[in-house]
């Protein structure tokens, strides 16, 4: 603990002494950090002491990967912290961080925390109104942003956020004509801080040492499928202990390397590319820009990769489209080896028995197909790869595992500092999310809801005791809001949001997300929304995938001018109908789900969009909102009409509002008799 340390010897800040009083390097049993390193600024001190010259951050600028060592990072953070102090940032203040993943923005977290302020990352693509809510609610005084785009957004809301005093921007491009009375550049703040630090050498260390593990480390606003976002407050203990557990679970080391490309305001990114990096001491790289992520991934070759299923899906789609264009020989080779991989790849990885000839061919395939393919995808060095957030399609999951990628699933949420359940090596299954993570207790409530208790359980929602009480019981159990159950082998299976699980008119179970996910596993279907609560059958809205269906249409010489036109083509309806019926056939086999077959569906003339409020920022469908917004269409689905005239307002990406009108066709799909009924009935009787 730091309590004993007067730390005279570390006062200079530049060269902390390894054996200074209170800074003993002995590690705790977990093996990652000494007990005194219980906040991120202290972890940074520890990393700068033990591995000063190892790279800590990387960023690609001007086409070259620039690196900073742990020692350089600490100096940067110290200067920034001093600069923020001069600006007026005080203990307990909130400071917003808005932008793409940038090392300097990650450093801002630590600099603010060193002063006892609370960083609040905000989704950089949030519309001004969403930002205003967060800024207002969190009483933000300062904001550190990436560039002009974000500054403009903040200027737009500034008049309605009286507490916001000053905006700091990282990229000075285009900023020189702005009124700088309430604005500074990052460079400037850091420069002033540097001067201050050399004049007050003990300041940073003294401030940093005041931090305690139980203090609030960060406030993450959860987008929430309904209502206003809630500010989830996580302590240093929450994040550090959870990150440490996860790192130990997967034997993460300081040699690992990750690419930080997920939104900084998302807890997944915060833990994976920030907290775990500071605990394990590995290097976090930031891509050049949002558009270059795939390239950067390939150049960097991370060893530890975390992505929502959507990313894996997009990668696979790109590969498949490019394979379609490949020459005949390559195409056949790809097909042959992928079939082989599907048969034995996963089994080889899990050390199960595989015929000798397959094992040999697989090794050849690694040389000819899998290796080059993994290289193209940037997965050559990946040792550990997680997906979470949504259910992943069987084809996608199998594809990556068969290539020899150790892809696993985990289940988590902001309120748990991510980890609730994770899959141990060798026990990976597609339809489960794994066993409870280290130090996590999971139980299933009577209504089927999953509940947990862990060291990662959040402190509270900021200024929202009512929501806190609703989520967290007095004895520390947290409601996840998800319905699920345990498998016989102890792995957790999640079926849907607990509140979304409803009943059809005939009383049978209706889990919309379960059905939607089954639909979304087809590459042609991007989003689906199923309706059926209190109805006599299930109907669905479907969003086609522009890339996949557009490509499909081009190959068949089906002309289209826009998304709306493509979605209205009868050929596309036929394509989707076939896939809906396949889902129905599948559902018919499941005794719980057989009544949930999709009787009618329609293809929406526009893509569901977060800017219209139809999706959350993490791209989950807001079913209730969509049900209201497209109320007429829902009624048309259930009424038996075949056509509906639709007129509605849409919001474009640049904020303008336009009108969308046109006819939407509604199609019927075949419903199957419960196939296994004959077989399953007697079994039930027996």
């Amino acid at each position, binding site marked *: 603990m730091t309590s004993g340390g007067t730390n005279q010897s570390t006062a200079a800040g530049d060269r902390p002494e390894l054996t200074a009083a209170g800074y003993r390097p002995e590690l705790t049993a977990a093996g990652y950090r000494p007990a005194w390193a219980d906040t991120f600024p202290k972890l940074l001190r520890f990393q700068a002491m033990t591995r000063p010259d190892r790279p800590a951050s990387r960023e690609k600028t001007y086409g*070259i990967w620039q690196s900073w060592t742990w020692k350089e990072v600490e100096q940067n953070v110290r200067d920034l912290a001093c600069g923020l102090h001069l600006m007026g940032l005080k203990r307990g203040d909130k400071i917003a961080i808005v932008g793409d993943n940038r090392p300097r923005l990650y450093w801002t977290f630590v600099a603010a925390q060193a002063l006892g302020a609370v960083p609040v990352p905000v989704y950089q693509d949030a519309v001004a109104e969403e930002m205003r809510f967060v800024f207002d609610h969190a009483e933000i005084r300062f904001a550190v942003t990436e560039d002009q785009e974000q500054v403009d957004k903040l200027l737009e809301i500034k008049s309605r956020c009286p507490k916001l005093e000053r905006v700091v921007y990282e990229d000075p*491009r285009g900023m020189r*004509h702005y009124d700088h009375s309430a604005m500074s550049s990052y460079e400037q703040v850091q420069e002033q801080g540097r001067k201050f630090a050399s004049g007050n050498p003990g300041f940073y260390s003294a401030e940093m040492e005041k931090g305690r593990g139980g203090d609030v480390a960060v406030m993450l606003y959860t987008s929430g499928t309904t209502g206003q976002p809630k500010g989830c407050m996580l302590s240093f203990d929450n994040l550090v202990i959870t990150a440490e557990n996860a790192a130990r679970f997967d034997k993460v080391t300081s040699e690992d390397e990750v690419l930080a490309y997920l939104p900084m305001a998302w807890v997944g990114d915060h833990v994976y590319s920030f907290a775990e990096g500071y605990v394990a001491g590995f290097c976090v790289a930031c891509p*050049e*820009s949002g558009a270059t992520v795939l390239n950067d991934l390939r150049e960097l070759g991370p060893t530890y990769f975390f992505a929502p299923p959507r990313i894996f899906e997009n990668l696979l789609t790109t590969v498949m489209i490019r394979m379609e264009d490949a020459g005949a020989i390559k195409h056949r080779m790809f097909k042959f080896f992928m079939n082989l991989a599907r048969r034995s790849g996963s089994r080889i990885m899990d050390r199960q028995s595989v015929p000798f000839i397959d094992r040999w061919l697989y090794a050849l395939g690694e040389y000819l197909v899998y290796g080059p393919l993994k290289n193209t995808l940037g997965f050559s060095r990946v040792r550990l790869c997680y997906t979470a957030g949504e259910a992943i399609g069987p084809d996608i999951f199998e594809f990556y595992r068969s290539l020899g990628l150790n892809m696993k699933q985990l289940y988590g949420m902001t309120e748990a500092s991510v980890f609730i359940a994770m899959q141990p090596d060798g026990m990976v299954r597609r339809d489960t999310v794994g066993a409870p993570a280290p130090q996590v207790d999971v139980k299933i409530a009577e209504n089927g809801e999953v509940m947990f208790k862990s060291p990662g359980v959040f402190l509270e929602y900021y200024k929202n005791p009512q929501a806190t009480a609703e989520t967290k019981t007095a004895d520390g159990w947290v409601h996840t809001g998800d319905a699920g159950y345990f498998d016989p082998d102890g792995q957790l299976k999640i079926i849907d949001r607990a509140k979304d699980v409803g009943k059809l008119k005939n009383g049978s179970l209706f889990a919309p997300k379960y059905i939607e996910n089954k639909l979304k596993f087809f590459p042609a279907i991007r989003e689906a929304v199923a309706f059926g609560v209190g109805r006599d059958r299930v109907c669905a809205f479907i969003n086609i995938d522009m890339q996949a269906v557009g490509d499909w249409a081009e190959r068949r010489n089906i002309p289209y001018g826009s998304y709306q036109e493509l979605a209205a083509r009868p050929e596309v309806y036929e394509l989707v109908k076939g896939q809906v019926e396949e889902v129905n056939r599948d559902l018919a086999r499941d005794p719980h789900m057989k009544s949930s077959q999709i009787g009618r569906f329609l293809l929406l003339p526009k893509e569901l969009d977060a800017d219209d409020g139809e999706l959350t920022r993490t791209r989950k469908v807001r079913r209730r909102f969509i049900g209201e917004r497209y109320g007429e269409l829902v009624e048309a689905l259930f009424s038996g009409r075949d056509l509906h005239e639709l007129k509605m307002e849409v919001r474009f990406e640049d904020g303008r509002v336009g009108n969308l009108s046109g006819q939407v066709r509604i199609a019927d799909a075949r419903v199957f008799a419960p196939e296994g009924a004959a077989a399953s009935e007697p079994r039930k009787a027996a």
Partner: protein
Amino acid sequence: MQRTRPVGDVLLHVDDISLSFGGVQALSGVSFDIRKHEIRAIIGPNGAGKSSMLNVINGFYHPQQGTISFMGETRKQMRPHVAARQGIARTFQNIALFRGMTTLDNIMTGRLLKMRRGLFLQALRLGPADREEIEHREAVERIIDFLEIQAIRKVPVGQLPYGLQKRVELGRALAAEPQLLLLDEPMAGMNVEEKEDMCRFVLDVNDEFGTTIALIEHDMGVVMDLSDRVVVLDYGRKIADGTPDEVRKDQRVIDAYLGVTH
């Protein structure tokens, strides 16, 4: 808008230029000047002689009459390579990039005049040539960053959509670090969003690098927003010259654009 660099002295002055192709009089007696750090638009109906004027400025066409003075040096006629060496760079109405080469290589060709080492040293990748290449690459990377085209750095230009090709062409012109940048219809054939992007880049180039810009453009909104002064040509003659507001009110300009009954 405030300027970082105020509009300065005359950079280029064309005096009494006349140009004809056989019996076609493309330009007759046109005079105007371009001042340092300004954005100067040349507008006019189709066939008014706008592109011919740019071609005269960078020495592609040789006028039969008149003089051109650039940076204090007066000539009867320019030659393209002299113009380029003196710091005049341009983009073309129909994109003129090397379609099979990547964005990076295309922009690199814009540095050609700045390369000091000979073919021999470059081919052998000897020390000085290598160092020079790194310097130029750095300059090019700054342009790539400036124009936000990092994602297409290594994509062959032929595969890019039109709007991006225009941007690459601008990048190549910028790579020469020109005193005067001639843009021939930089926004032609673009959608609204691409136009807005391009406008921003033109303004930024002018503001951050202090580059003087002469541009031909058909979109009146763009011209009025961007330019400091506008010269209007019609049938090869100058009919107006002044600020966007003055030009907009000029009766002869209105007539030229809308037509008059004779």
